[in-house]
């Protein structure tokens, strides 16, 4: 992985976010500095309410920090940027659009011709295992199905950078593993002869195993106001498969992370 290191795609310096709401001022992100390399897969762990979603919103250009700076491809980030796919913590689907139409949204917005939209969307519907539900409205989908629609939507326009906020939170263990594997396949293992370019991914997760299995690097945040408690490289070989989970190396890394959190 380090062999491919070119330049940081995201560089965060002294990032601070405070909400002046509720009763008084709430400091959410304490000065926070880190950089994410191009094509790196970073998982973020941290206790509930520490500021993970807030961090992701800042990185996505959806929230301007109170202090500090975020450089995206070397330039200061001033708003959402092209080629970034986001999965929000809740599925965040448009209730008036069918599963299909929700997934098609990013393509519609970037003006993809109709004829290309349908095959691509169906490809993703298959990827997330929702065959037969293309025409369903969000209200008739189960929690996990809605979340899978949201994942498909974030991937459909093949963005370079993915910001994922607990994308698998509502999925059962098996589906979760399948989706993780898909993510690895389309995003990371691409370099091994798959799609054109590998993606940069920053993903919030609560599952330590998942973080170890997927990531190149795991950031552990402390309780609010969040600081980086640990920044661990996951030097496990790729491509990774299910058996990796039972290796001592994997267990050791997971244990280390668990300890750092506790």
């Amino acid at each position, binding site marked *: 992985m380090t062999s491919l290191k070119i330049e940081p795609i995201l560089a965060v310096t002294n990032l601070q976010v405070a909400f002046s709401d509720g009763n008084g001022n709430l400091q959410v992100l304490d000065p926070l500095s880190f950089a994410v390399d191009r094509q790196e897969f970073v998982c973020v762990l941290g206790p509930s309410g520490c500021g993970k979603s807030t961090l992701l*919103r800042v990185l*996505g*250009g*959806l929230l301007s920090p109170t202090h500090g700076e975020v450089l995206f491809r070397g330039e200061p980030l001033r*708003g*959402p*940027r*092209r080629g*970034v*796919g*986001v999965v*929000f913590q*809740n599925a*965040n689907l*448009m*209730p*008036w*659009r069918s599963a299909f139409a929700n997934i098609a*949204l*990013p393509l*519609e*917005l*970037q003006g993809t011709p109709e004829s290309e939209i349908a095959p691509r969307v169906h490809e993703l519907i298959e990827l997330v295992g929702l065959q037969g539900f293309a025409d369903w*409205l969000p*209200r*008739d989908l189960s929690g996990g199905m809605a979340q899978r629609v949201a994942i498909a939507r974030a991937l459909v326009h093949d963005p370079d950078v993915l*910001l994922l906020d607990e994308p698998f939170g509502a999925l059962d263990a098996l589906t979760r593993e399948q989706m993780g594997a898909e993510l690895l396949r389309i995003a990371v293992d691409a370099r091994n002869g798959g799609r054109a370019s590998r993606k940069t991914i920053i993903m919030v997760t609560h599952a330590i195993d998942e973080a170890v299995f997927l990531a190149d690097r795991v950031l552990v945040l402390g309780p609010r106001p969040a600081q980086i408690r640990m920044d661990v490289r996951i030097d496990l070989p790729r491509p990774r498969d299910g058996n990796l989970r039972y290796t001592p190396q994997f267990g050791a890394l997971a244990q280390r992370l668990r300890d750092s959190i506790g």
Partner: protein
Amino acid sequence: MKDTQRVIFIIVSLIGMLLLWQVIIWAADLPAFVLPSPGNVARRFMQTVEDGSLLRHLGVTLFEVLLGLAVGLVTATFTGYLLAKSRLLERLLSPYIVASQSVPMVAIAPLLVIWLGPGLLSKVLIAALIVFFPVLVNTIVGVRAVPEDLYALMHSLQATRWQILQHLEIPAAMPVFLGGLRIGATLAVIGAVVGEFVGADRGLGFLINVGRGMYDTALVFVAVFVLVALALALYGLVVGLENHLLAWQRRAEE
């Protein structure tokens, strides 16, 4: 089955009302110019249909209503959107908008007539003015209710202002907006008729005036019924639009 039920109900209730109407006339022995009988009204209706006068007046009113509705709708939606997006603008402008709504038509009708002449324009303007407010308010309320999270989604996809409007704000605000349209469509009819009362020589409102002037109450009834039918048709159109556009929202309630 529900639809059959409904049709039956309406037919029964209509027949019931006709009966009641006739019974009132028999019982109270009311003269025709106070309350004409259903038969009277039907005959008068056929007359005005045959000599083409009803159609002519209906055409005029319909044109005024549609034009007024269109003008009121467009301006209200546009203004409402702006005010919804800026609370400052809303605070600054809403006193003037409310003021404009609370000046009684009768007080400004002469001005309208002086400026616009006694013709079509003044009626269209009155209808538009009366449509404006409910559509405006509901546009504001509707746009304000668009979930923040979906804005974030659209921003993350680098949607343009126009795309946000088209793909997010319009569909999300649609339920409340259509509520405003329901009110507006009904009021547009009233608006055009009020304009015709203030001064006109054609239209259904004028026909009512004529009927009243000549104590031809059957003619008044004919004109009123046609007006009501017009309003119902417009309302039905809006409801149809709702059924079509808000299908995604509907399952739950049935």
